[in-house]
């Protein structure tokens, strides 16, 4: 069902955890659909210096969360805003069709975290 890359990220997820002194936090999803993703950012000079995630959800939800943190780390906020759910899924060599909508929200969580940072540092 899942690609090797999805399983690799699911088995060894990158950047799991939270940041107590996060500059921005974003959360998307809801319990009823079975996926909740939370992303924590540390920002310096407009660049993502550290990023962590916590996810309640299926294999795809965990793998996309892991992948988005890897893709966003070191990027400027503008570059990170350009990351799409589609790009995250492609970086994982694709997701099963039924997972594209429900469990592919990691870029949204990242964008929410960036917005949260901008609001509190605007």
């Amino acid at each position, binding site marked *: 069902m*899942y690609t090797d890359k999805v399983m690799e990220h699911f088995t060894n997820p990158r950047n799991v955890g939270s940041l107590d002194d996060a500059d921005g936090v974003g959360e998307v999803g809801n319990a009823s659909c*079975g996926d*909740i*993703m939370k992303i924590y950012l540390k920002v310096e000079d407009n660049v993502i210096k550290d990023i962590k995630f916590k996810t*309640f959800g*299926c294999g795809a939800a965990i793998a996309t969360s892991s992948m988005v943190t890897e893709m966003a780390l070191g990027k400027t906020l503008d570059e990170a805003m350009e990351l799409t759910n589609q790009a995250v899924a492609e970086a994982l060599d694709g997701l099963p069709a039924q997972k594209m909508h*429900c469990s592919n929200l990691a870029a949204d969580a990242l964008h929410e975290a960036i917005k949260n940072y901008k609001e509190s540092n605007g």
Partner: protein
Amino acid sequence: MKQIYLDYNATSPVRPEVLEAMLPFYKEQFGNPSSVHWAGRAVSGAVEQAREQVAAAINASPAEIVFVSCGSEGDNMAIKGSLAALKDKGNHIITTAVEHPAVLETCEYLEKNGYEVTYLPVDRDGLLDLADLEAAITDRTVLISVMWANNETGNIFPVEEIGAIARKHQIRFHTDAVQAVGKLEIDVQKANIDLLVLSGHKVGAPKGVGAVYIRRGTRMVPFIHGGHQERGRRAGTHNVPGIVALGKACEIATAERQAYYERVRALRDKLENGLLQQVPDIKLNGTPDRDQRLPNTLNVSFAYIEGESLLLNLDMYGIAASSGSACTSGSLEPSHVMGAMCVEVTLAHSSTRFSLGPETTEEEIDSLLEVLPATVQRLREMSPLYNCGKDAEECLTCETVKRL
């Protein structure tokens, strides 16, 4: 890696003796039992012997057994065939909110076609209140359909009491006994059952065969029209190897039932005790009264984590189980059984079923108990719901995942 299969409620391997019994019917005994010549005669006896074996397993007469292709066909045939035959008497069905989709979807289809259906609720332990059943009966009620045991929780329903109520009101009683056969004593006389459905692949026969018990004198409209097989009750060339296998599997299951019950229950109880002791924030789904649950089934929810990710982790250790999460059901909603039981929605997504079988060993249960607590903890450390300062929410409104 050693493989540990704990999903017997989904399907079971064909038992070696059963496979042995069915093989000749693919080769030398290939005939069509409806044929008059030597090739047909050679196999018709085997079909009738299987009918006797199936009948004996549920205390019925062989003539009351009709072979079908699977449990879903059996349920469709029992329900639609009854309603068509009874359309002058009424149009109301009473069933439960926790039936298998083969019954629920059939009832929902019938609702769209002018029938009325009452879906009896269950309580938080997944149990029925028979006062609800009595209260739901009207003079238009023609069928009560209640499963013998629930596939997800293992809860056993009081079929004898339901049969007595149905008999008192002269309403036909159908039960989906797919999960009960081979695990519990099944007596269609004692329980006043008019229609009972069983499936081969849950009792050690292959997929693709099942049977419906139709009490003598129960009028039915055939569901599959065609040839005169099964005394006109179900057309279609007999699946001879499958039927022979079903007969053999029923015979073995009946002979071994009591010993199997005790053995598998001891293993299930060990697993249940172990998990409840070792894993904090765990919820049992189903009745805590273990006598009222199938001896092989355990369904639990691990707070803060989702079922599919747990199954994938267990799969890496070679352990096969199943989940009521939306992700494994192929829909966006978690299990309707958990919804009907008013299980809080994240707990519903994390419901995990372990169903043991004849080949399950104590070593396998020990392996699971060794692996599972750490796996759950690993996923919890990843979850935004864990240690977030909020307690797991109690479901008060029951709005969460109620399907019906």
